[in-house]
């Protein structure tokens, strides 16, 4: 049940203020990108985007549209700050992470502006918790310059088919090799670990394949340690789109349906591994 926080004493309005009946709609999505301690939050009129980066090679974004919130008001064109994602998640799940049916944590989020902490008001079963999280100067984010016009290969798969594969990836392999081709093997995930190599092939006519648009045979390798966190997003999602551009940059977009049936997106961008060697077969 949403409740309103007291307005700031000076009469100014909050730069960002939002209410959410079920904090899980936000926390589950944020967990899907939680592979680094810090995240950059960007709020615009369309909603909230939380970005996490690592090694200057990988970037994950969680998008929560304004429509998901019961109330979403922003006074400036955009509001951006850096915050500890670990702390934010701990606060959002302060009443526990197990989801009992019927109970949910209500959230109200307020941000006065640059230099001010992010205020969270969480309520469950009549108990209210107030959290104040320090915000930091936002850092420059990577721009992968990935746009749909430059996409060479694109596949949309039902997540069900990939979930087990990603969960069981041979982590003794340094890389995950992705092959996309208009010819066999169409879509192949390969690892080269201590035991030997392993290949996972998805044919283009598989029931799992929702869309198959491959124009060119491409084989790219990505550091497996960077991609492994995307398994969390995969686990939540119902569909995933896999795209590569001419330089081998990878875009993974996950369509996630929350408990209320609303759609949110999480995307991962990854650079190809520079130490390319001949692939083992």
């Amino acid at each position: 049940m949403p409740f309103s926080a007291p307005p700031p004493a000076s009469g100014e309005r909050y730069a960002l203020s939002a209410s959410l009946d079920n904090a899980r709609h936000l926390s589950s999505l944020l967990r899907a990108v939680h592979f680094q301690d810090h995240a950059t939050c960007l709020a615009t009129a369309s909603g909230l985007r939380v970005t996490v980066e690592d090694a200057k090679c990988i970037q994950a974004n969680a998008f929560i549209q304004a429509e998901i919130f019961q109330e979403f008001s922003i006074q400036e064109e955009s509001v951006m700050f850096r915050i500890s994602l670990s702390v934010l998640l701990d606060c959002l799940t302060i009443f526990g992470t197990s989801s009992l049916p019927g109970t949910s944590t209500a959230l109200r989020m307020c941000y006065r502006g640059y230099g001010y902490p992010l205020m969270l008001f969480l309520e469950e079963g009549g108990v209210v918790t107030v959290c104040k999280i320090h915000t930091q100067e936002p850092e420059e984010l990577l721009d992968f310059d990935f746009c749909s016009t430059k996409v060479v290969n694109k596949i949309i798969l039902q997540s069900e088919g990939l979930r087990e594969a990603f969960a069981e990836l041979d982590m003794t392999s340094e890389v995950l090799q992705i092959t996309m081709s208009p010819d066999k093997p169409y879509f192949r995930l390969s690892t080269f670990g201590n035991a030997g190599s392993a290949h996972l092939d998805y044919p283009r006519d598989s029931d799992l394949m929702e869309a198959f648009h491959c124009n060119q045979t491409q084989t790219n390798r990505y550091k497996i340690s960077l991609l492994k966190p995307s398994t969390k997003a995969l686990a939540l999602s119902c569909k995933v789109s896999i795209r590569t551009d001419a330089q081998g940059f990878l875009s993974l977009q996950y369509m996630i349906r929350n408990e209320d049936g609303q759609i949110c997106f999480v995307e991962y961008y990854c650079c190809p591994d520079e130490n390319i060697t001949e692939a083992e077969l």
Partner: protein
Amino acid sequence: LSRIGDELYLEPTESGLSLRAVNSSRSAFASFLFAPLFFQLYEPGGAGPDTELFRCKVHMKSFLGVFRSLPSLEKSVGKCLILLKPRASRLVLQLHCKYGVTKTHNLAFQECERLQAVFDTQRCASCLCAPARVLAEAVVHFPPTLAEVTLGTGPGGKISLRNYVEDEAEPSKTMVTELWLAEDEFQSVAVAPGSHITFCLKEFRGLLSFAEASNLPLTIHFDEPGRPVIFTLDDTVLEVHLVLATLSDLESNSQSPSTNGVSHLPAPSDDFADDLESYMAAMETSEGCSEGPRSPTFPLCTPRPAKSKPQQQEEEEEEEEEEEGAVPGTPPHKKFRSLFFGSVMTPGRPGPATAQEVLAEDSDGE
């Protein structure tokens, strides 16, 4: 098999695919033979009638990694193709899954010699057969950390199971658990009265869970202490053997030193020659078996030149008993006798190419 050893030996034969394992101290050996009928397609290969079928060994962990999650495998995998590619040095395991998805694993393998323990169920004085469930329920009473258990026969045809306690253990600090099973719990009982054997429980538990899961009766062949105990499971398409060394009773061992491999029964020398013929030849000669100090359970298994005198073998064994736990990974008790992995050289018959230790010679020294 993974409860026994770290390496999986794959040996295709005309009568099926044999998967085997042996433990580091050579006191446990297991083999699973899957008949050709078990498979949809079975082609053991071989270029011609005279060439030996290729065999190899792979790391147990690598192989098990392919079949990681059994429940989901059952739901999603339609068929599994196993190909041995000697030229590419790869064992290929290909799983054909739901939705047309194919998972291909290319595992590195090592060539190896034939791994075969020497045993003969016919020579065992006692034999028990019981549904796996009965034994599983009996074994559950023992702590999971228990190393050895003693199986014995008692009055009224009852069978006992008791945890083995080392002589050095303090009586006040040890707990002894003993349970008795009535003859009617078994499907068949043919035992020499008053017999008992002590073997390693841990290695047996692995087979027991398999037997329970596949709902097969378990047959136990045993003889005197010191001679191996053989557990078998039989099915139309599967034959399983688990051979475990047993603790020998040194006090009652008044026989000649080279008791390994030779029947304790006072057999005339004619039987002795027959025994030799029934022994299998190959010795495991790959790198893995020569690491560390010699196992007290098994003096063989090294690339060193064979020592051919039984008397010397006895001396070795005496020396070994003085070593205190020198060998890592051996069964805890020093008195375990070994399994039979050697080839036996009959006087006059050309022996195999590799140097072998003679386990038994003509018993004219007795």
